[in-house]
C-alpha cells in the first residue's frame, strides 16, 4: 500500500508530462548566408504537435501556435528629435540594455486573443511586450513614448514584424509560418521560439537557433574594414586613383 502510494507520487509528474503535448519544430534554414546578391530571406518555420497517445484530444478548444524569431539583443541609445529654434535636432534620449535587433512574431490568431497581458510580458509575445531593459529612470509616460518610438522606427525598417494569422495549422497537428528577413538584418545568432498555447496557458515551447552571417567576399570585406582599417583604406584609395587614371587614359585615346 505504502509502496503503491510512493510509486504514484513518483509517477505523477511523468503521467502529467505525458498528458501534455510535445512540439517538434524545425526551420527551413539553420543558417542564412549573406552574399553579394542578398536581398533578404524567407524563413519557413514548421513542425508537428505530438499529442499523448497520438490522438488530438476531442471536445477541447483547438490550441494556438505562436512563433517568435528574435535577433541578438543590442545595447542602444534612442534619440528623439525636437523642434528647437525652427529646426529639428536630437534632444531627449533613452538608453536600453537589451533591445532585440530583430523581432518577428507570427500567430494563428491575434496574439491578444490567445494570451493575457501577464503571459505576454513573461514570454515577450508581441511588439508592445518587449523587455527592453531601459537604463534611465524616466517617468512611465516618457518610457512608453520612447518604447513606442523604437517599435515604430524598427517596424518601418522591416526589423520588427507582427503578423497575426500567419501561422497555418493543418488538422491540429501540423503547423507552418513564413517570416520575412529583410536585407538590413543584423548578423548574429537568431532564435526561433515556438509556443503551443491553449486557454491562455503555454502547454509547450521549443527553440531552434538560426545563424545569420556574412559569407565569402562580403564577410572578407566587412572584417577587413573592421580589423585592418589602414590596409583597407589604402586599397580604397588605390582603387579610386586607379579607376580615375584608367578612365582618363581611355578618354585621351578617343
Amino acid at each position, binding site marked *: 500500500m505504502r509502496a503503491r502510494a510512493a510509486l504514484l507520487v513518483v509517477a505523477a509528474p511523468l503521467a502529467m508530462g505525458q498528458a501534455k503535448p510535445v512540439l517538434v519544430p524545425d526551420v527551413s534554414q539553420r543558417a542564412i548566408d549573406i552574399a553579394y546578391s*542578398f*536581398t533578404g530571406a524567407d524563413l519557413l518555420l514548421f513542425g508537428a504537435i505530438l499529442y499523448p497517445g497520438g490522438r488530438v484530444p476531442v471536445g477541447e478548444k483547438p490550441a494556438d501556435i505562436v512563433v517568435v524569431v528574435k535577433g541578438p539583443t543590442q545595447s542602444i541609445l*534612442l*534619440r528623439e528629435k525636437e523642434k528647437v529654434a525652427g529646426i*529639428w535636432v*536630437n534632444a531627449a534620449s533613452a*538608453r536600453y540594455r537589451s533591445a532585440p535587433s530583430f523581432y518577428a512574431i507570427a500567430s494563428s490568431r491575434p496574439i491578444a486573443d490567445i494570451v493575457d497581458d501577464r503571459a505576454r510580458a513573461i514570454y515577450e509575445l508581441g511588439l508592445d511586450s518587449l523587455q527592453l531593459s531601459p537604463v534611465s529612470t524616466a517617468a512611465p509616460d516618457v518610457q512608453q513614448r520612447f518604447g513606442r518610438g523604437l517599435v515604430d522606427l524598427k517596424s518601418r525598417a522591416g526589423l520588427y514584424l507582427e503578423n497575426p494569422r500567419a501561422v497555418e495549422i493543418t488538422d491540429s497537428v501540423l503547423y507552418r509560418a513564413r517570416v520575412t528577413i529583410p*536585407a538590413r538584418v543584423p548578423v548574429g545568432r537568431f532564435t526561433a521560439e515556438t509556443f503551443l498555447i491553449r486557454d491562455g496557458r503555454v502547454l509547450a515551447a521549443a527553440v531552434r537557433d538560426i545563424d545569420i552571417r556574412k559569407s565569402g567576399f562580403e564577410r572578407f570585406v566587412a572584417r577587413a574594414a573592421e580589423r585592418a582599417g589602414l590596409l583597407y583604406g589604402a586599397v580604397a584609395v588605390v582603387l579610386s586613383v586607379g*579607376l*580615375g587614371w584608367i578612365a582618363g587614359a581611355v578618354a585621351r585615346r578617343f
Partner: protein
Amino acid sequence: MDLYLPVANLSVNALVIVLLGGGVGLLSGMFGVGGGFLTTPLLIVYGIPPTVAAASSASQVTGASVSGVFAHVRRGGVDFKMGGVLVAGGVLGTFAGAWIFKLLQALGQIDTVIAIVYVVMLGSIGGLMAREALSAIVRSRRGHAPRAAKRRHHPLVAALPFRTRFYASGLYISPLAPLLLGFVTGVLTILLGIGGGFILVPAMIYLIGMATGVVVGTSLFQTLFVTAVATMVHATTTHAVDIVLAGLLLVGSVTGAQIGARLANRIRPEYLRLALALMVLAVGVRILLGLVWRPEEIFSVTLS
C-alpha cells in the same frame, strides 16, 4: 541588379548607384568640381547611413579628380609649392575633422551639424556664384568687354608673416594663408565627404589672388590628396568606408567626368557657372527644408 553592401549592411540597386555616380561625374567634369556635395546628400536620400555616405563619397571625389590633375600637370597648370602647402593644411584639417566628427557623434548632433554646415556653405557660395555669373552674362549681353579685374590678395593675407615666393602663382605671400585655407577644406572633407573645390577655387582667386591659370589645377591637386587622406582617416577611425559602394560610384563618376569635360567646351563659361550656382542653391534649399520640415523619423537609434 541588387547588390549587398558589406559595410553599410543593406542591399542597393547597383545600376541606380552607378547612374548616380555617372550623373555627379558628368557635372563634376563640366564644372570642374568634385561633386561630393551632391553625392553625399543623394546617398543619404537613397537610404545609406550618413556616416557611410560621407566616408564613401570622399573616395569617389578622389577618382573623379585624378584625370583632371594629370591633364593640368601636363599643361603646367599646377603650382606644386602652393599645392603642397594646401595639402599639408588639408591633412591637418582631416585629423581635426575626425576629432570633431567623433565629438559630435557622441553628442548625437552630427547629422544636424552636417546639414547646417551644408546649408550655410551651399547657400553663401551658391549665392555669390549666381550673382557673379549673372553680372557676367549681363555684361557680355551688353557687349562690354569683361572688365579685367586687378588681381591682388586680401589685405589680411598680406599682413601675415613668413612671406615666401610662389612662382607659378605669381605671388609673394605668407604660406599661413593657404595652410589655413587647406585646413578648413580638410575639416569639411571629413565632415561632409566633399572635395571642397567650390570653396578653394573662389578663395584662391579672391582671397589669395593666385594667377587664374593655376587655380583649378592646384585646387584639384589638393582635392586629390586630401580626399585620399580623408578616406584613410575614415577607414581607420569610423570604419565606415564601403568599398563596394565606392567602387560602384567610381565606375559611374570617372566615366561621367570624361563626358562632362567634353561637354563643357561647348558651353559658354558664364552660363556654366550660373547653372552650377543654381544647382548648389537647389541642394542647399533641399537640405534646409529637411531641417525645418517635420522629419519622417522623430526617433533614431545608435548602438552604444
